[in-house]
């Protein structure tokens, strides 16, 4: 199997990634924008999850909360992802072997799959959500899974600078 490491080496050697890595402001500013977008994105996802599990905003219909938060989640997800990819490009050789970075990607993928599965399973009957007891049970499960997976994603992200397992 061809190794991906040379590609990361090439990416790291590019003029713009080198410039960002060596600038005293480049990396911190992208990273701070990344965090600023993520807290809003993940924060709103968690608000939705708390509604799904029935811990908050219970007076509001589930479908309504979902529909009204979704555009804001997407509006912050896109710049979160863009800045995240940029951060990786600046220092690929540092990240690709980092345990917490890899764990983060796994949790992120699982969180995405969970959201997608919930969406596909319930979307067709979105209007009947709040009355359908089967959907309520699925919603609770999806909410708990989402809370857990996003929490793990955030915690492992913040641990990336600590290279505990070399």
């Amino acid at each position: 199997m061809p190794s991906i490491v040379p590609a990361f080496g090439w990416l790291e050697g590019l003029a713009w990634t080198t410039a960002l890595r060596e600038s005293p402001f480049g990396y911190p500013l992208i990273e701070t924008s990344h965090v600023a977008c993520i807290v809003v994105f993940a924060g709103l996802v968690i608000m939705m999850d708390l509604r799904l599990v029935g811990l908050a905003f219970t007076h509001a219909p589930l479908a309504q909360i979902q529909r009204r938060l979704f555009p804001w989640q997407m509006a912050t997800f896109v710049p979160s992802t863009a800045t995240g990819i940029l951060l990786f490009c600046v220092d690929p050789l540092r990240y690709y072997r980092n345990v917490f970075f890899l764990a983060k990607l796994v949790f992120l993928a699982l969180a995405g799959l969970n959201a997608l599965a919930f969406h596909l399973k319930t979307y067709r009957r979105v209007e009947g959500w709040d009355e359908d007891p089967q959907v309520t049970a699925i919603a609770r499960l999806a909410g708990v899974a989402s809370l857990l997976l996003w929490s793990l994603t955030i915690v492992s992200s913040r641990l990336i600078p600590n290279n505990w397992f070399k």
Partner: protein
Amino acid sequence: MLLPFFQWCDGLAISQAYRDSTYLFPLTQALHVLAVTVFVGAIVIGDLRLLGWGPVGQSRASITRSAGSILLWAGLAVLLTGIPQFTTNALTYHRSPLFVFKMYLLAAAVLYTATLRRGVAVADEGHLPSWVPKAVGAVSLALWMGVTISGRLITYYG
């Protein structure tokens, strides 16, 4: 002026335990960020509603009240995970303009949220000109994002 207090924090047993441990500080930091995310989520959902966006099917008061209990719990977690980080690094933070800035901004944000923002959010919806809740929501968003961003920048610029 506050130097003796910062020195006292630095000398606490918990600060020493944090300095001695490889794992304690980073794990506390990670849980702090998680608690901050939940807190900011509960702020943003309320601010969006004040701005006339987000869950407009619900009244401003009902969204703010439900978000209020999340704010309390998440705020408590933010505080519990923030305090040991502060005491461990108290002597560094004493010289950090960003840390001082964050604390002033945090105090302003907490005061603003507990008084003006809360008052406007629970007020009778017909009684206020429509620009008032919008302005209150925008200022709240700016204050809390300012706290979050300045907190993040402490890592880089002390």
